[in-house]
């Protein structure tokens, strides 16, 4: 499997040179490495590509939070973004459904293509984007409403039909139905943290998006609840493409098909710091035979 990947990646022009340059190099070299990985991954996915980032930079008030990220995200897979705190992985995932629009000082440069359309094109309506690309957040954020109304909210707001049916299907889809079917009218805050997070996943799939973004969905949960969410992710993979940000490397290794590793880069004077994509490949390779020594140090626990 890994050989095949390397072989295909090699066919793309920048592949070999990118890898050769990878350890300990300047910014432009890293960008090339990123592009090499992007080209490499393009040929690997079997259900096509949903996102294609080209030199994506996000700035908050002029200061870059993440710089020059180029990568492709495959459909029907789970893609994990890992890296130390401040490496911009949360900033990056929030680009995929224009959540950064809610932060007034945020500016996005470069392009983020969704099925070939630039999400940041001048005609693009963020509301339309978010109807197709849902999100689950770090802290479970159910609305202060009943369990049923939480799930019905999305379909109602979008004017969809068969609300009752959607609620039931979404709860089944999030493996929550058996636990809550007798208390659908109770307030969502009466649920446990893990249940609340699965409710948020159910709420997300109730509007039937194509992609689910998950920003550290298990960081506030205990290991048992985390396990349930990971099992759920493996099931959801059948119907949805998933991008997950996680601090937990074991989680990335367990659930994801592909992993992107980002680090915090400092400028020469150590005044500015920003996130940089170091390596992006199939998860097995990232965790067993990474191309970049910094990736290896991180995944083996030498740093971070």
């Amino acid at each position: 499997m890994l050989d095949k990947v390397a072989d295909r990646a090699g066919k793309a022009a920048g592949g070999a040179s990118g890898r050769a340059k990878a350890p300990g190099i300047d910014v432009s070299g890293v960008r090339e490495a990123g592009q090499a990985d992007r080209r490499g991954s393009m040929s690997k996915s079997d259900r096509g590509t949903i996102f294609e980032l080209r030199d994506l930079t996000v700035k908050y008030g002029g200061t870059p939070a993440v710089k020059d990220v180029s990568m492709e995200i495959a459909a029907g897979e789970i893609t994990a973004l890992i890296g130390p705190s401040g490496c911009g992985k949360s900033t990056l995932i929030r680009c995929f459904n224009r959540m950064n629009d809610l932060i007034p000082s945020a500016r996005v440069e470069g392009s983020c293509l969704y099925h070939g359309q630039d999400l940041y094109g001048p005609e693009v309506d963020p509301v339309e984007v978010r109807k197709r690309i849902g999100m689950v957040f770090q802290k479970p954020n159910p609305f202060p409403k009943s369990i049923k109304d939480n799930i019905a909210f999305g379909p109602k707001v979008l004017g969809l039909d068969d609300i009752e049916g959607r609620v039931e299907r979404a709860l089944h889809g999030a493996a929550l139905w058996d636990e809550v079917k007798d208390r659908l009218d109770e307030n969502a805050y009466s649920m446990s943290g893990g249940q609340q997070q699965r409710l948020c996943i159910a709420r997300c799939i109730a509007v039937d998006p194509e992609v689910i973004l998950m920003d550290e969905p298990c960081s506030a949960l205990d290991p048992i609840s985390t396990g349930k969410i990971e099992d759920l992710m493996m099931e959801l993979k059948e119907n949805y493409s998933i991008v997950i940000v996680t601090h937990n490397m074991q989680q990335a290794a367990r659930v994801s098909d592909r992993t992107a590793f980002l680090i915090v880069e400092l400028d020469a004077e150590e005044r500015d710091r920003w996130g940089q994509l170091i390596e992006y490949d199939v998860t097995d390779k990232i965790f067993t035979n990474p191309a970049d020594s910094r990736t290896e140090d991180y995944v083996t626990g030498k740093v971070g």
Partner: protein
Amino acid sequence: MEARSSIEAARAPGGRLDPSRPLVASSPRWGERLIQLSLALCAVISVATTTAIVISLLVPSIGFFGEVSFGDFFSTDDWAPLTADPSFGVLRPVIGTLSVTLWSLMFAIPVGLCSAIYLSEYASPRVRKLVKPILEVLAGVPTVAFGVFAVTFLSPEIGKLFPEFIKTPPFAAGIAGLAVGLLIVPIIASISDDAMKAVPGGLREGAYALGATKLKVATRVVFPAAISGVVASIVLAGSRAVGETMVVLLAAGKTPNLTLDPGASVQTMTAFIGTTATGDVAVGTIAYDTIFAVGALLFVMTFALNIFAIRLVRRFREVYE
């Protein structure tokens, strides 16, 4: 001073306290006790004032109800306490108060809530920083200015627009209500804005991530999540409107009509107290005691509203902590 020197004396040259020294206070610390006592006294003042007001209202009220039965006071609508053949059916001033309060809330609730939604959800931080203090300054304008504004500007202008509307120009419950409404808009806008700002950002993000528009996020998620704070702001504003005196004294007239018609002149409970207390009623007469009976009723009404509002605010604080 003395305490400090004794501590210094107890210190060894290195600066550490001698461990064999008993662990008792080095001085009785009278100053601290005095300060604690005076702080407590200050806190007691407001409680004592409330108690004093209740007593000062209650004692003459008891005298009043010794001569006038509860039934006559609460369930008849003949209101002529200052005449030679007096009648004490309090219904007319109560309806007058309700009328002005009703019309003020009809104006202030929509305007206040729309302002709150704008400030909390739409305004940029810069605009909010500018507009909110201005709005709150409006609450500090002396109410007599609102009263004069109502009589000299609102009443004639509205009279021009709707010539038949005001029955006895320039006085009308609706005009007074509008002016009181202007006065309480800041209460509703400011408290509701605070309540909506206190709704966690995560709820907004959750709604946006489902493809909700800004309006839907504001009206279907943030507003309902802040509802107890919003209701509390309305109740507080209502209680302010019930107790408002100067505006109604100037703009609502003195005729105790038994009507909710905004074009009619009414006499509110506060206006009755204001006029009578500054008039030439002899102390100790039944007419004089009427002031206290009406005042006691007013106190009970606003007290109940405030307790209700405080409970709501407390509940809405608990939800997200």
